[in-house]
């Protein structure tokens, strides 16, 4: 046959295919969770909320190269906005509460972005830690609004669309989380492939070069911080709506650090990597801590060391790495024949 060589795909068609594949994978993983682990939906919903936080972190760290250990401030901003509206405002519509979380995260993102982006490198990292510690201290101080160290309770969302109640099994919350993740993933794929996304990738690679193209770097980064805040805020709101409580841990340094670990684990600068990193890390942690309550942290540490040593670009690089190994093994065999 003459036409054995496949025509090269256009970049747009190729990227659409990747997006569709990612959405299909999320939907499939969501269905597997629902069918195979009906008793663990509460845990899986927490994984989904964390996935939104890690995706959000990927936007600023993976795509823009901003180092931060304070990203949970954005998650907590959303969680408290949503929780306070429910507990003090008496709002019960879960979609309104999610929107409040989005707005709360957006505002927190813009404010912390304006602070953190004043510096670069290590001072930036220190500023980010200061931001999350200040947010945490503020939430503790305003205990009349936030419940302080006791946590904010009294969040009782009504049924979703007036029909699906948030029951004890957590099915509604879980499905809401999966749907939210699908929408956010599709939106973020569009974002990172857009001209703005291209500019942000340019900023990550070489700020001076971007300036030499005539682009304004800081406004672009602040805008990305706002978008990132909205995504993290949605995660926080999902957590508030599905668990009914918001604690100080939602904007802790520990949560920020573990989000960064999950991102590096999966591969920064790739939305798929952020998701795979979150799911594999949390499921591994969950399984190992149940199986071995004494040494589970050691095992988690060993896994992290292994990934960082052998897959410095994270789990998302595993397929390409394996393909490379197979090719290398095949090459001498051909040469010797």
């Amino acid at each position, binding site marked *: 046959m003459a036409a054995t060589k496949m025509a090269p795909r256009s970049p747009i068609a190729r990227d659409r295919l990747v997006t569709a594949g990612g959405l299909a994978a999320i939907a499939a993983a969501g269905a597997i969770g629902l069918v195979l682990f009906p008793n663990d939906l509460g845990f899986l919903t927490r994984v989904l909320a964390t996935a939104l936080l890690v995706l959000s972190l990927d936007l600023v760290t993976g795509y823009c190269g901003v180092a931060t250990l304070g990203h949970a401030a954005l998650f907590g901003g959303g969680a408290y906005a949503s929780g306070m509206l429910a507990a003090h405002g008496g709002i019960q519509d879960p979609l309104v509460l999610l929107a409040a979380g989005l707005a709360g995260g957006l505002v927190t993102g813009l404010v912390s972005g304006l602070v953190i982006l004043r510096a670069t490198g290590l001072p930036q990292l220190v500023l980010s830690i200061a931001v999350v510690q200040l947010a945490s201290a503020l939430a503790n101080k305003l205990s009349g609004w936030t419940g302080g160290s006791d946590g904010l309770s009294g969040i009782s969302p009504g049924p979703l669309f007036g029909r699906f109640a948030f029951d004890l099994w957590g099915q509604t919350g879980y499905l809401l989380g999966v749907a939210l993740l699908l929408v956010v993933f599709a939106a973020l794929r569009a974002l990172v492939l857009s001209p*703005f996304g291209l500019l942000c990738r340019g900023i990550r690679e*070489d700020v001076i070069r971007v300036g030499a193209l005539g682009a304004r770097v800081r406004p672009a980064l602040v*805008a990305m911080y706002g978008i990132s805040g909205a995504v993290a805020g949605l995660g926080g709101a999902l957590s508030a709506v599905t668990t009914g409580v918001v604690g100080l841990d939602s904007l802790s340094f520990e949560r920020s650090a573990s989000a960064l670990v999950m991102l590096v684990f999966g591969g920064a600068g790739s939305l798929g990597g952020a998701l795979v990193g979150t799911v594999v890390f949390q499921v591994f942690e969950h399984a190992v801590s149940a199986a071995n309550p004494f040494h589970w942290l050691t095992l988690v540490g060993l896994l992290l060391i292994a990934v960082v040593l052998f897959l410095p670009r994270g789990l998302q690089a595993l397929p390409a790495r394996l393909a490379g190994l197979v090719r290398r093994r095949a090459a001498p065999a051909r040469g010797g024949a």
Partner: protein
Amino acid sequence: MELLRVEALTLAFGGLRVAREISLALASGDRLALIGPNGAGKTTFVNLVTGQLAPDAGRIVLAGEDVTRMAVAARVRRGLVRTFQISRLFRDMSVRDNVLLAILQREGRTARAIRHAATDRTLVAEADAHLERLGLGEVAGDRVGAIAYGQQRLVEIAIAVALRPKVLLLDEPAAGVSRAEQPRIVAALAALPPDIAVLMIEHDMDLVLRLARRVVVLAAGALVFDGSPEAVVSDPGVRAAYLGSYGT
């Protein structure tokens, strides 16, 4: 038409004076080579003009507008474009995306956050046309980090041209390029839009004599010669600047 005028540009790092009242003007169509021994302050001069460094005194006027206190990016948007001595490209992006980002920026489209960057076919076609013209059509889809260094130098030129400069500052455009690859760089520089003003830092006198119609010589931060490429070779002041005490 005068496009760039530099007036008495002065800068000192502590006690070291790296730019001493440098004045020069560039008009549309000019091809000026800036040469000088190592440490003469050539790159410092380019950094002053582009805004990477702020002068202690002096003025920079771009197409009639004083840009002395303007940020780097603002000067670029007004048509003052540079290339770098060591390639500064987005190595993880494709060659095409490197040029496309420059075009999107020039067109003020980088705030668009919904549709795919390659949606506008005319802009993608323009990026491809720039690359074709420089013989880079074959590698347009390749990652910049994976192509030869000589080709990367050409991508730098493609980006600069895509920004539609009025004044183009080339910082050693052939630096690090092998002899075999040099003719492609020379051809690319010879084919720059005729109406723009070009200032090129270059060590290779062969290249200078081929491309420049005027040469200025910088030594210890001061201009010591401004004239034709033919005259510069025999100028005693220039020889002294290059050879120091050995020349006397």
